[in-house]
């Protein structure tokens, strides 16, 4: 038994994880979702904005990271659309604007008018420098939008000449450039409120910025998305995925415990194969 466990084929481990994810997706349990404080803070911030207020949504992510952020990004777009806020989209990853197009199409903005209620300004090359350049000259950095329209002529841009004219920037971020760059070039020096939909790996690094007020809110990965969906009473992909999160987390914890037990029993009985003395 012990020897069998020690030489367990990794594909069996993969199968267990796969089932722990697939079964709850197909047969949901409906465990309750808790809402984090920083997610509620962002919700309340957006909820208090009057209709027509412009909010920048920056897609600073690639398809690899977006897999984790889609549910949160769509939830926040849905909230903004239901509050009739103007969505000014842009991206500092070359993949950002294309993902943003899909996100707009999957959100309530799809029922609104492009160029009036929302816009995708496209991509600007150069990472942190591009963010800084945009912060100094928003219209000059995006003379055309992603679809090739003259940015200045769009109704959605009325009254916006600089990044300081928007009420909030939400960066959907999974890497560099991302949150630290936005804080360095926009949040801190220009005092524009900043929030983020962020990949889980980076959530612990964000706490100093949250506590100091450099970030006004945060949607952490799928858990944050599920919480946000609950706050706006629009269930989506985040809520649907949380049961699978629960089961897969249990599976991983089970493997850590089992791995350690097998290891230490094996060590005691001297059967540990290829192990250190």
């Amino acid at each position: 038994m012990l020897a069998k466990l020690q030489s367990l084929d990794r594909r069996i481990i993969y199968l267990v994880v796969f089932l722990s994810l697939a079964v709850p997706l197909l047969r949901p349990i409906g465990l309750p979702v808790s809402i984090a404080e920083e997610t509620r803070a962002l919700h309340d911030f957006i909820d208090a904005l009057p209709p027509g207020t412009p909010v920048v949504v920056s897609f600073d992510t690639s398809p690899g990271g977006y897999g984790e952020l889609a549910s949160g990004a769509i939830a926040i777009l849905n909230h903004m659309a239901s509050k009739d806020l103007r969505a000014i989209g842009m991206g500092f990853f070359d993949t950002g604007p294309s993902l943003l197009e899909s996100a707009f199409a999957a959100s309530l903005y799809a029922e609104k008018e492009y160029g009036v209620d929302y816009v995708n300004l496209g991509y600007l090359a150069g990472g942190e420098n591009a963010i800084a350049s945009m912060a100094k000259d928003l219209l000059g950095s995006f003379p055309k939008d992603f679809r090739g329209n003259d940015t200045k002529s769009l109704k959605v841009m009325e009254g916006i000449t600089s990044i300081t004219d928007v009420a909030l920037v939400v960066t959907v971020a999974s890497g560099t450039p991302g949150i630290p760059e936005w804080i360095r070039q926009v949040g801190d020096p220009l005092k524009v409120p900043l929030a983020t939909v962020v990949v889980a790996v980076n959530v612990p690094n964000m706490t100093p910025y949250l506590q100091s007020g450099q970030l006004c809110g945060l949607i952490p990965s799928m858990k944050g998305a599920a919480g946000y969906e609950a706050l706006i009473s629009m269930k989506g992909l985040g809520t649907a995925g949380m049961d699978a999160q629960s089961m897969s987390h249990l599976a991983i914890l089970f493997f850590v415990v089992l791995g350690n037990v097998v290891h230490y029993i094996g060590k005691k009985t001297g059967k540990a194969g290829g192990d250190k003395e």
Partner: protein
Amino acid sequence: MRRELPIAITFVLGVLIILAFFFDSPTLTNASQSLQNWAVIIAAFALGIASVNLIQVHAKKIARGQDRLDWLYSGALLLGLFGMTVIGLFKGPADQMYQFWFNALFTPGQATVYAMTGFYIASAAFRAFRIRNLEAGILLVSAALVMLGNVSVGEALWSKFPVIGSWLVNVPNLAAQRGMMIGAGIGGIAGGLRVLLGIEKSYLGSGS
């Protein structure tokens, strides 16, 4: 000249940008703004370098034609590259056909490669993550508590798991992250200073 000129340029521009950030001078602000606009344009040109490198490598592979499969792989890569470029240049990146291939190939391809890491974390959990000493023990216990705090089943098992999980993230983790952030900030400034002074010049590449 071939080494000194680039270093001098880096130094002058870096100092100019720093001064423009801190001092309220229209001249400096304008200069820094134009420079940043220029840098965006240069960065846009730089986006092509990866493609040139890929074309070089894969064209060579095809020309050598050692393995029929290599041929197929490199051909597929070049097909993707040229196909996307042609559609994009003629129809623009917001075009329906362009978005089609972006969503059909690129999005699922990269998203799935990243998703597979979920499997790897599971096998490492079983085979490698050991409580080999006190530190690893603290790490794994903290990880377990945060994991149970993150998901609903944790709360269902014990209502205090989310409270403990978020306390760990918001208090001890905050302290550690802040300490590391300040340290890394100072390290970053030191690294930047080495670049500006021309001590660190690996970005310039090798050669004379």
